[in-house]
């Protein structure tokens, strides 16, 4: 705190919040932001968790606000978010850019420029991110006076200026947005010399649906159904993260039985993703036996999801206040038996991958993400842990059953190589750990309430923040209610949002034919990045 005050020219006011363990620092002068961020990242070893802009021009504040939210990175550090809050003049919406010092801020700042018209002064990349060609200048969809239900005319536009290399023998390879397989849309512009990738410029946000705007003004209980559907394979994690943020606002806690059921489902989501991802990595390495086994094991897990919750993606289980389905003992017995079978099948698959030199050769040293790059970009989840970053939101921001006063033991799997093989290894260790954890959660289940009611209207003008370890890594949810308890602003920073720039870096250590393998070894979502 003293170091922060010493770094600032203007005033620094500290408040507790949003949660009792968190801190919000209001910087009187926006120009102090880079120095304050440097203090948090340097001496305090914190990382950027998310950036949230809000339009408060219609309130007595008559300004825009930007919150830069940081979190500790040291294993065993307390569960805390530190928010640097600055006020932005609506007549001259500019903030100093953090990107050159804090690379993880890059996309956050470009997104804020596209959606709020807040210019990050000194940002090295002037290109749009979220809105694509033909979006009219000076129209900012997340400003409050913009009617989100309105379609906006398409204006004539130049071709998007991709970052490419030039020279003799240098080729440009455009791929997407519509791909050859059943995958989500994105455009990848490779420049290559022969097989070697010189540069990869990935353009995303094709599936930007305006979901954050769509939720504004809704009852938080209705908006939940949108949060649960931002992403298919992160449905449970995102639904749960939204519920935890909303429960903070409402001042309630889901009962212990609900917390355990939520944690069981969160591990089931991790399981079907990790098992399916290992199968798809085999596809990238042309090991079709592994692809088929991975697909069969994943199918079995999605069928058990459906038996437990009525939905193969676990939708419809979590609900604000708890869970809306209980898990009876006979179903839990089926679950336990299925997971034991899955473990045997998965161990056999991993054994066959490791014993197959042609597969191992494709995976070893392919798509290397350096440890320092993973730290600088605040990479999350499997990709971070495979590059030696010891972060896991289940331990660092305890949620579900891990928030219990006597939490179950969690073994966070890390390896240091940072290549595709390392990402397979982390997934393999986590599959075994998830199956062990589900067993532990089932043992801890005791009869009791599975849900508490949330009374409407919800408290007005409150903020909730939560971080959930989804299959892809830490997702940060930020929710604020307006004066009458409706959704004023919701923002999701998905793990994929921080990880996509890392894919481009890793691809630049690979050859073009290995890109599908590199991409599958990260296995990121487009939809929860684009929202």
């Amino acid at each position, binding site marked *: 705190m003293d170091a922060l005050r010493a770094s600032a020219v203007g005033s620094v006011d500290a408040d507790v919040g949003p949660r009792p363990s968190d801190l919000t620092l209001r910087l009187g002068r926006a120009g102090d932001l880079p120095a304050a961020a440097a203090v948090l990242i340097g001496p305090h070893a914190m990382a950027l968790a998310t950036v949230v802009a809000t339009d408060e021009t219609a309130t007595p504040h008559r300004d825009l606000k930007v919150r830069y939210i940081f979190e500790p990175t040291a294993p065993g550090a307390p569960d805390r978010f530190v928010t640097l809050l600055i006020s932005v003049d609506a007549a001259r919406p500019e903030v100093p850019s953090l990107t050159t010092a804090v690379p993880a801020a890059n996309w956050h700042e470009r997104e804020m420029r596209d959606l709020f018209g807040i210019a990050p002064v000194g940002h090295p990349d002037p290109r749009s991110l979220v809105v694509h060609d033909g979006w009219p200048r000076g129209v900012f969809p997340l400003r409050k006076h913009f009617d989100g239900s309105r379609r906006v005319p*398409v204006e004539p536009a130049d071709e998007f200026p991709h970052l490419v290399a030039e020279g003799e023998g240098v080729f440009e390879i455009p791929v997407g947005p519509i791909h050859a397989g059943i995958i989500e849309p994105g455009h990848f512009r490779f420049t290559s010399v022969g097989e070697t990738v010189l540069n990869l410029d990935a353009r995303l946000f094709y599936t930007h649906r305006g979901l954050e705007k769509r939720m504004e003004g809704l009852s938080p209980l209705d908006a939940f159904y949108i949060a649960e559907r931002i992403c298919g394979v992160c449905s449970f994690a995102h639904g749960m993260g939204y519920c935890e943020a909303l429960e903070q606002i409402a001042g309630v806690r889901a009962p212990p039985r609900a917390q355990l059921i939520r944690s069981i489902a969160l591990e089931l989501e991790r399981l079907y993703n990790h098992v399916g991802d290992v199968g798809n990595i085999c596809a990238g390495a042309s090991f079709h036996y592994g692809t088929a086994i991975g697909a069969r094991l994943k199918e079995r897990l999605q069928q058990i999801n459906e038996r437990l919750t009525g939905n193969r993606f676990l939708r419809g289980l979590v609900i604000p206040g708890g869970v809306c389905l209980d898990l009876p003992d006979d179903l839990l017995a089926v679950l336990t038996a299925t997971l034991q079978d899955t473990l045997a099948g998965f161990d056999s698959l991993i054994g066959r991958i490791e014993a197959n030199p042609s597969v191992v050769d494709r995976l070893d040293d392919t798509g290397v993400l350096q440890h320092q790059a993973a730290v600088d970009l605040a990479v999350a989840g499997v990709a971070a842990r495979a590059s030696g970053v010891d972060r896991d939101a289940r331990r660092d921001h305890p949620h579900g059953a891990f928030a219990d006063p006597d939490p179950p033991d969690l073994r966070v799997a890390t390896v240091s190589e940072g290549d595709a093989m390392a990402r397979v290894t982390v997934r393999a260790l986590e599959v075994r750990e998830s199956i062990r954890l589900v067993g532990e959660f089932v043992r801890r289940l005791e009869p009791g309430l599975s849900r508490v009611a949330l009374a409407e209207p919800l408290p007005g003008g409150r903020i909730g923040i939560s971080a959930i370890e989804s299959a892809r890594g830490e997702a940060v949810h930020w929710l604020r209610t307006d004066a009458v308890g409706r959704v004023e602003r919701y923002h999701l920073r998905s793990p994929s949002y921080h990880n996509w720039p890392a894919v481009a870096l890793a691809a630049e250590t690979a050859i073009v034919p290995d890109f599908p393998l590199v991409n599958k070894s990260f296995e990121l979502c487009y939809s929860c990045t684009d929202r």
Partner: protein
Amino acid sequence: MLGRSLHLRHLDAGSCNACDWELAALLNPVYDVRRLGIDFVASPRHADGVVVTGPVTRNLEAAVRRTFEAIPDPRVVIAVGACAASGGIVGVGYASAGGVDRVLPVDVYIPGCPPRPEAIIFGILVALGRLDARRRPCQG
């Protein structure tokens, strides 16, 4: 009997990826739709039709139209999932045109969030009948 076989191009028009993963599941050893003569192909030029997931986002609208136009006629359009069928939770807005039928002529709607693999197979088989009916006049 070539008409009994259907080669489809997947087109993600802005989906949350749940419907996409269910389409991928159709190729797994459990559903294995290739045994029914159904397959997913890499190019729209090779396709008899398109399976669309998601509402049509503003950022994909041009790509959606161009993919459809690249498919030889006669062609079938199958809208998979609540968003593709009606706009779903996304609806119409600054970033979305709504359901696929706002942009392309849809032949078969498969509801669900997401629809189960069995429902998607059923819908594709419905589309197969539709494609036959359209071809008859051409075959003369």
